[in-house]
């Protein structure tokens, strides 16, 4: 699925990376614990989180995550957005909560990437 479809499905706001919305993604990982994400996220997975600090962007950087989605109206700081922009990571914000965000994207075809 293209990141642009995620934007539509989640009625999300794109805070940086508007020029990268055509990128394809297949898997996703949702957690507020970054060490869970680091242990379980697959290559190229979209990261959904309710945590809002610079380590989210750092974690995305370590995993080559193309897109971070902040759920339940969390708003990253400008410093975090700048950090993501520098690393060419798309940042989206949605008002949906974690469960709904996961459900909507799963139904639309994203998976956790498990065998």
């Amino acid at each position, binding site marked *: 699925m293209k990141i642009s479809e995620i934007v539509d499905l989640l009625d999300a706001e794109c805070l940086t990376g508007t020029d990268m919305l055509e990128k394809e993604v297949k898997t996703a990982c949702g957690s*507020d*614990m*970054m*060490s*869970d994400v*680091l*242990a379980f996220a697959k*290559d190229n997975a979209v990261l959904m*989180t309710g*945590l809002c*600090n*610079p*380590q*989210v962007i*750092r*974690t995305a*950087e*370590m*995993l*080559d995550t193309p897109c971070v989605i902040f759920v339940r109206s969390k708003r990253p700081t400008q*410093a975090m957005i700048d950090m993501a922009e520098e690393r060419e990571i798309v940042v989206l914000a949605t008002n949906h909560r974690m469960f709904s965000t996961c459900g909507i994207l799963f139904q639309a075809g994203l998976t956790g990437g498990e065998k």
Partner: protein
Amino acid sequence: MEDNLVFEYVVSREDFTRAGEASADVKKKLKALGVPSGVVRRVSIALYEGEINMVVHAYGGNITVEITSDKIIMLLKDKGPGIPDVEKAMQEGFSTASDSVRALGFGAGMGLPNMKKCSDRMDISTTIGVGTEIKMEVDL
């Protein structure tokens, strides 16, 4: 051996927002050197988890990364409380992280096991009240 590349970093505990800068820099350098992406990924994840631990469980320290012809060697040395029971600390889910650390998104007890998983060899030596030294190697 003089061909080996060595990178050194000071990890400060002062600023949590900067934790991970050393790992990010190593990742950038490995990519630039053309190291295979799977190796870059394992090194990045292992080093980042280790660097975070140095900040949230200890008082900071030093990271040295050496790239030889056949492997990447990471040495993480911190000043800190040490780890009383390494075997326990290595178990998935074991964590002594405080609520404030958990609020920052860490403290699932996944870091050390993931470091072991990502590396080909990992060795921990720790002294209570002095600090911890972790050596990890990833083969090229």
